[in-house]
């Protein structure tokens, strides 16, 4: 019973401390709230409201009279200014290339699209041409979207020209009259154009005649919405783990505080065994983390819609996290001489191990991060927080009991190691 009394006393102290409550609940929820806000959580039912990319367009294209009214440059400008893309692109026409580039340099636009003078000529006749995209080097998403649309048009023209050129060359080699070359070109061009148009129309109808795409993720009805949820879920679990370790360190600090205040030495003079006193304190650390994790899991599920996974694997992941965080806090505290060392050590060690351990959280929202994710994952497993994150992500990805056993075993093994070292050091200290 004395063990419980000591534990309850420490628990009351922890939960009455504003500092502790802020680190336990406010900061993790605040951080995830910021991400929820960052990725359009307040944007209503429309989801993520990615800012429209500002584009400056310069159309220098001067099609010759042989092309009639057709202008490839105008076609490209019309696409960029079309109603379909108005939500993604904010297009304005610049007076010239220098003005357009200056607008990008002044951050008035993200990218300038400069269509060369011979664009139509190169598309339909001889020669080559390049559409220049002058972009802000600090941006990737917006210029990437513009490049994607511009490339579609340019690819289409290039494909038709290549098709026409190669087909005519091959036919002439087979003996088809070269004098009919011009008529041949038009015939091939027309037929190829019809094929390309049908392909484009099929895409617009939602079909993909070329690819059978199988998604491994839970894309839901809209990929963007799931990406947002994935970012939030990943961030929530990362922040929960990060601050669970902080809380454990702070809770363990009570041993040092009582030692300095003299109450711990006085407790040791009582008939209560030392093991009971230390046990009570360690139990308080354990229960504090357990309460923290349970509260955060519930609030995150209700407020942010985080799907934590099946109950039994979730319980096991919780057990692993609580044991590992508590024991790491005890271990770290056992290394310190007094409370004066806690500020920078806890702040420094916990920040370093925490940020490395949850580094893969930061790659969740970055495009083209597949290799980055691998690097982050490998580095994170050097830290106890990394194993906790690994276990929780297995559960959140739908893993069952058998899937979570390995990370759980590692967490418990690490936890046992830290706990034993910490307790032995305290025993030696108070012997």
């Amino acid at each position: 019973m004395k063990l419980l009394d000591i534990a309850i006393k420490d628990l009351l102290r922890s939960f009455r401390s504003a500092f502790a409550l802020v680190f336990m609940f406010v900061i993790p929820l605040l951080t995830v709230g910021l991400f929820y806000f960052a990725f359009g959580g307040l944007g209503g039912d429309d989801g993520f409201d990615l800012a429209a990319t500002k584009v400056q367009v310069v159309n220098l294209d001067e099609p010759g009279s042989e092309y009639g009214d057709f202008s490839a440059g105008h076609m490209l400008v019309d696409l960029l200014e079309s109603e379909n893309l108005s939500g993604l692109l904010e297009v304005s026409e610049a007076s010239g290339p220098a003005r357009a580039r200056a607008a990008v340099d002044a951050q008035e636009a993200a990218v300038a699209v400069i269509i060369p003078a011979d664009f139509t000529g190169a598309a339909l006749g001889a020669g080559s041409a390049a559409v220049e995209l002058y972009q802000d080097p600090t941006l990737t998403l917006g210029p990437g979207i513009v490049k994607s649309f511009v490339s579609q048009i340019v690819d289409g023209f290039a494909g038709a020209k290549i098709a026409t050129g190669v087909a005519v060359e091959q036919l002439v080699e087979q003996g088809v009259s070269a004098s009919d070359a011009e008529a041949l070109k038009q015939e091939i061009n027309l037929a190829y154009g019809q094929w390309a148009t049908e392909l484009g129309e099929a895409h617009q109808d939602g079909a993909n005649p070329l690819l059978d795409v199988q998604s491994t993720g839970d894309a839901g009805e809209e990929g963007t919405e799931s990406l947002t949820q994935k970012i939030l879920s990943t961030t929530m679990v990362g922040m929960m783990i990060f601050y669970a370790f902080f809380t454990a360190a702070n809770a363990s600090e009570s041993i040092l505080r009582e030692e300095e205040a003299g109450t711990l030495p006085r407790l040791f003079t009582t008939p209560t065994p030392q093991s009971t006193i230390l046990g009570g304190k360690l139990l308080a650390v354990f229960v504090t983390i357990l309460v923290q994790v349970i509260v955060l899991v519930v609030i995150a599920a209700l407020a942010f819609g985080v799907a934590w996974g099946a109950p039994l694997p979730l319980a096991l992941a919780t057990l692993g996290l609580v044991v590992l965080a508590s024991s790491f806090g005890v271990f770290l505290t056992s290394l310190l001489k007094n409370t004066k060392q806690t500020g920078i050590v806890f702040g420094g060690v916990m920040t370093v191990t925490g940020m490395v351990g949850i580094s893969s959280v930061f790659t969740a929202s970055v495009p083209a991060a597949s290799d980055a994710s691998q690097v982050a994952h490998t580095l994170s497993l050097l830290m106890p927080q990394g194993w906790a994150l690994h276990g929780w992500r297995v559960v959140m990805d739908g893993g069952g009991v058998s899937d979570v056993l390995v990370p759980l075993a590692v967490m418990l093994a690490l936890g046992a190691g830290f706990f034993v070292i910490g307790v032995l050091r305290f025993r030696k200290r108070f012997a």
Partner: protein
Amino acid sequence: MRVIDLALKDLMQTVRDWKAATFLLAMPIAFTLLFGAIFSGVGNEDDPRLPVGFLDRDGGSVLSVHLSDLLNASDAVRPVALEDEDLAEVKRKVSDEELAGAVVIPAGYTERVLAGEEARLTVIVNEASAAGTTARNGIQVAATRLRGAVQTAQLAAQRYERSSEARGVSADEAFLLETLGKVVDAWEEPPLTVSVTHSAAGDQGEASEIGTSEDDAGESNVFTQSSPAMMIQFSIAGLIGSAELLVLERKSRTMQRLLTTSISRLGIIFGHFLAILILILVQFALLIGFAQLVLGVDYMAEPLATLLMLGANALWTASLGLLVGVLAKTEEQAVMYAMILMFVLSALGGAWMPLETTSQTFQTIGHLMPTAWAMDGFKNIVARGLGLSAVMLPAGVLLAYAGVLFALALWRFRFE
């Protein structure tokens, strides 16, 4: 002079503690390297494109070979050959993000396509991820070019058969395959291209035109985001030590003893402020030096602009540190306030992730934070290659923040 003595006292107290030096210098350097490495995709410096699994179940057919060539030439993805793997294993690799996606050429694909029958490539991606979407788009481009090549070959064959020269003879397979091959080869130097150029600091060399949708114009330094970001974040985190000093001084009644000396109250405030300012200036200078010399982040391309940003950042951060030290009653509170500020300002200011990846609302609110202006100013120099005129506005905003925060600290400073 007493102001300087007080500042020196604070500085000595701080630098005597090796842990503080570690926190102020080693950690921002470590995290700059960590985040720079993560976002550079270290381990694939020679080929930063997304890895896409390539599983050929069509027995090395002509279309398999041509598709592989087209994927190799892509600027977005690079094929990674998969040998004899089943679909479940391929899906696992994509789910575990070992691959950004995978393309499977089903058995009989070439035969069906050349016969004009419906045939599709199987693509496995996580469409809920940005990498998966990029991979799918890259594969789509290659597949469209491949089928365009097939269409061209078939059109040419049909035209030949209709010509008088053919005399009713069908075009043989060799003609078809030769035409197909020539079209695929022609995509190596297409007549129409998209070239991507940046301002001077974004290029390490001349912008170049490679091909449609392809660009290998100068690679931007991956540390142009993480270097200023970690520098700004850890300058705020470093305020813990400075704020704790102020708290300790008050709690230990040293403040009261100082007041019995000839130093004025304003002198005490300025002494502490000067210590925090010097510490941050030194921290910034060392980190900028490290980034310049080791990471190749060219802060010195515009030395005056960098100096202005350095000074403005140090002033607002020092003012913030003074305010934290003034408001905190205990060391714990100093840590708490500094950590909350570090996380909130870093997240909102675009230190953790570029603000362009966030929603419009977030970007607007983010720019109410001084950290966003600090990031803008430094990125104008190191990423955009702009000069003094481009950092005037960010520096001006930071100096305004410095003024407001200092005034608040002054108002709240308790001498009891």
